[in-house]
């Protein structure tokens, strides 16, 4: 068997980087480990470059076990960008927690898990990637191990993640039992439009298992608690990376492996999406903690992205990929502000954000722009993203488009309440917040990206078009 290792280069580089950071942490004395953040960030940048340079290098490995198409590469670029921004923006937060080498290597392994997940060509690889990612996240969620809330979040996450993995695995085994294959493309050929009940049950379990990962309602209960308790950079990466990776595999499983059952799950996806959008947005309204607010808003975002699954078409996949990419910048922008604010003031309460626009205009502006991009207000990126998502469903699911767009206007209500506090109120403590270089850089990157992708989305849209097209080529 001829294995083209160049296809695996990003994953190999990532594994080496993760182990390297771990070993480096043991060699460097405890006091001088904050340089590890830079090593990680630059390493991620390197892997990102490697991944982008392999854009045209597509193929299969190990008889379809591992798929490298532009669809997977695009998602890998998304994860790596997210990991890079999270690392760059939250170095100070990590330094205050200590144990940098464990933290950064876990971030790297989680990213590796996502990359494997995006390329998974069969159920085994899928499960491997998913667990690698989840276990790394379990460690990360309870990283502030002296704090009760963080540990509580960790325990919640480990229990529910274990549960959902079990459900997912059972679903996968049922699908395997009916179709006799674990390779996604072969399953796709074996599944017929007249399903046996066991297959339906299997599909339902897949929905539940993956629904947990993307925190779709009614599998979202863990999200607010875990997002609130976890260290903020971890929350940010969990919201972006874990979610995007789960969407990558969700599309792969449903669109590529179960197209025969399309008629059965498409309505289910539409209803899940509608419920998620409504619940996420409505429950976000009374929140007073910024991390809980962002948690519920991220639930709503998952609902929007699910819209792309409903039509299971190239346009829908394109919408998901486009949205996932711009969601990285909006979410990381907002969470980086929250993390830095926590470092300075020790608070996550929205009311303590009073007067932030006067203490640090950049932080306030990034928070508002990120949130409004999530709400889909033009000319920010979220608007174009929603346009691509909703345009796929106006023909058959007009009601869903109406719900989605009206609820995104409702979301402006709670986003603007944060803006109200930051802009109208006078600060209690008047000292300006000075931003350190990497944080300022992260904030500027996310803000500029959100604006540019919104005003001039043409180039990204074309890249995504090719990537979505590659999904159907094999």
């Amino acid at each position, binding site marked *: 068997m001829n294995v083209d290792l160049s296809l695996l280069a990003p994953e190999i580089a990532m594994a080496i980087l993760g182990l390297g950071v771990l070993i480096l942490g043991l060699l460097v004395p405890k006091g001088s480990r904050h340089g590890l953040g830079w090593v990680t960030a630059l390493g991620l940048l390197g892997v990102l470059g490697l991944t982008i340079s392999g854009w045209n290098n597509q193929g299969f490995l190990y008889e379809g076990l591992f798929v490298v198409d532009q669809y997977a590469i695009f998602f890998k670029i998304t994860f790596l960008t997210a990991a890079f921004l999270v690392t760059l923006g939250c170095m100070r937060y990590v330094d205050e927690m200590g144990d940098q080498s464990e933290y950064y290597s876990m971030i790297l392994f989680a990213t590796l898990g996502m990359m494997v997940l995006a390329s998974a060509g069969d159920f085994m690889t899928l499960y491997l990637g998913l667990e690698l990612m989840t276990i790394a996240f379990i460690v990360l969620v309870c990283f502030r191990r002296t704090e009760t809330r963080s540990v509580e979040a960790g325990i919640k996450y480990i229990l529910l993640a274990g549960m959902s993995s079990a459900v997912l695995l059972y679903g996968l085994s049922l699908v395997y039992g009916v179709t006799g294959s674990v390779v996604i493309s072969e399953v796709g050929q074996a599944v017929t439009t007249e399903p046996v009940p066991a297959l339906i049950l299997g599909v339902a379990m897949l929905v539940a298992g993956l629904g947990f990962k993307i925190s779709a309602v009614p599998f979202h209960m863990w999200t607010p608690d875990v997002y609130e308790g976890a260290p903020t950079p971890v929350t940010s990466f969990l919201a972006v990376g874990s979610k995007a990776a789960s969407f990558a595999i969700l599309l792969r499983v449903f669109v590529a492996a179960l197209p025969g059952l399309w008629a059965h799950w498409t309505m289910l996806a539409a209803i899940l999406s509608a419920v998620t959008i409504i619940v996420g947005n409505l429950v976000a309204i009374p929140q007073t903690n910024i991390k809980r607010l962002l948690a519920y808003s991220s639930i709503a975002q998952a609902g929007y992205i699910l819209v792309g699954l409903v039509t299971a078409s190239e346009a829908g996949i394109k919408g998901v990929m486009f949205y996932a990419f711009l969601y990285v910048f909006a979410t990381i922008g907002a969470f980086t502000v929250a993390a830095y604010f926590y470092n300075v003031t020790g608070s996550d309460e929205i009311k303590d954000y009073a007067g932030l626009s006067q203490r640090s205009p950049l932080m306030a502006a990034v928070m508002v722009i990120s949130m409004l991009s999530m709400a889909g207000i033009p000319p920010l990126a979220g608007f174009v993203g929603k346009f691509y998502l909703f345009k796929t469903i106006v023909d058959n699911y007009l009601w869903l488009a*109406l719900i989605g767009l009206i609820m*995104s*206007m409702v979301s402006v209500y709670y986003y*603007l309440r944060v803006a*109200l506090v930051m802009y109208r109120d006078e600060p209690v403590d008047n000292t300006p917040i000075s931003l350190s270089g990497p944080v300022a850089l992260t904030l500027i990157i996310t803000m500029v990206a959100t604006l540019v992708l919104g*005003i001039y989305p043409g180039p990204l849209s*074309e890249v995504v078009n090719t990537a979505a097209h590659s999904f159907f080529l094999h």
Partner: protein
Amino acid sequence: MDGFPVLLTILLAPVVAAVIMAFIPREEHMLIKCIAATGTFISMALSLYVYFAYDQSLGGLQFVQQIPWIKDLGVTFFLGVDGISLPMLLLTNLIGFSAVFASWNVNHRPRDFFILLCLLIAGVMGTFVAQDLFIFLLFYEVVVIPIYILVIIWGSTKRVTKEYAGMKLTIYLLIGSAFLLVGVIALFMKTAAISGVPDMSFTGLARAAQGLSDFDQKWLFALMLFGFGSLLSMWPFHSWSPDGYAGAPTAVSMIHAGVLKKIGGYGLIRIALYVLPVGAKFWAPVIAVLGVCGVAYAAMAALAQKDLKYIVGYSSVSHMGYVLLAVASLNVIGLNGAVANMFAHGIMAALFFSTIGFIYEKTHTRWIPDLGGLARQAPRLAVAFMLAAMASLGLPGLVSFIPEFTIFVASFKVYGGLAVVAIAGIIITALYALRAGANTLFGPPRPEYDSLRDIRGPELVPLAVLGTVLVVGGILPFLLFDMVNSGIVPLMAEISGALQLGGSF
């Protein structure tokens, strides 16, 4: 000036001013105000140039700029002006420039204020010069955020809190735009399916939309009517307007009442009517009835108000009723009247709000029973007030007389009885406008206002600019009407076929 991107310059001048201001120390109040004034002046001067350089005999879109933008959505960055958008563009810049001077006395965080104001002006302008639906939408909602922040920081709390006012303005605009957006996306998908190539330009959409079924045209038009109508404060979706204006700072009231809500009327003509004429024909009677309800209801409500801003707020709802009635007449005369009336009302409302802003600034009240005899202490302020009030009731010789007259002529032909009700609205308008003027300006002067300083220096700019336009537009109405006519006639020629064939209500 061939090849020079005039429209882009007009659009970007306030944005550049905003960016420059962001880098100026926040204590430099005067410098900040001068930069804001310069930015808006450049836009105003250039749009005046464009207005008079536009070749009416040639007609159509001029000063066009096209850059391919998003290929798979068929979006081009398409700027251009014709006889419908030019008066609106000019209106925006006249009011924008005046608004900077009406806010000359803002000394609480002026840097933030003028940055947001300039972004707001640029956003409004963008909707009038965009000839592509997607680009139009980009600008359409840009304005929401600056408005919200301007209201919650610099607004005033009277009958309603400024937070309530700001949120009400925002939510109404956004919910309306959610429906509009659904309509736009559905329209885009359907036209793209008909013509085979995605095209978001107004002309491209209109051409492809001819292939839509009557049913599609009708429900798409209904969505757009709701979206644009709620922005135009169409009765019964008007209640944001008086509350919002009352809570907003002067400059925001000026821009919102003066031009922003006109985007609703402009969109109704330029997009909804032009692209979906069959739908328009179907819904026209509904628009007419809602318009007349708005005229009558809001005029009555204005009668009962004692807060000056509420009077003008309701009066603007009432005037927009005329615009709706005119649009519903679906003939050239009516649409001419609609666009001209939007221009006239914009100038008048902006002058009104700036005057009220000065009165409030100096007396700290807008409550009519607490005011009186101001003409003695502040004669220049009184001139501005009376000019605006007279324009509001449609005094011949001022800019708003001929547009209103035109609307009545056009709508009487089509809707007879309804038009009579609308004309009766004029009487009520005269009643509240004159009464407000009388109780505020005339009568015995009050001693507590003896030390009141009349408007002077930069404060005179709104009166000078807007007052001049009020008078010149009244004496030389052809300056406005020839321009509007050159835009409406070709538009109607394109859709007249569909209007005659389409089913009626």
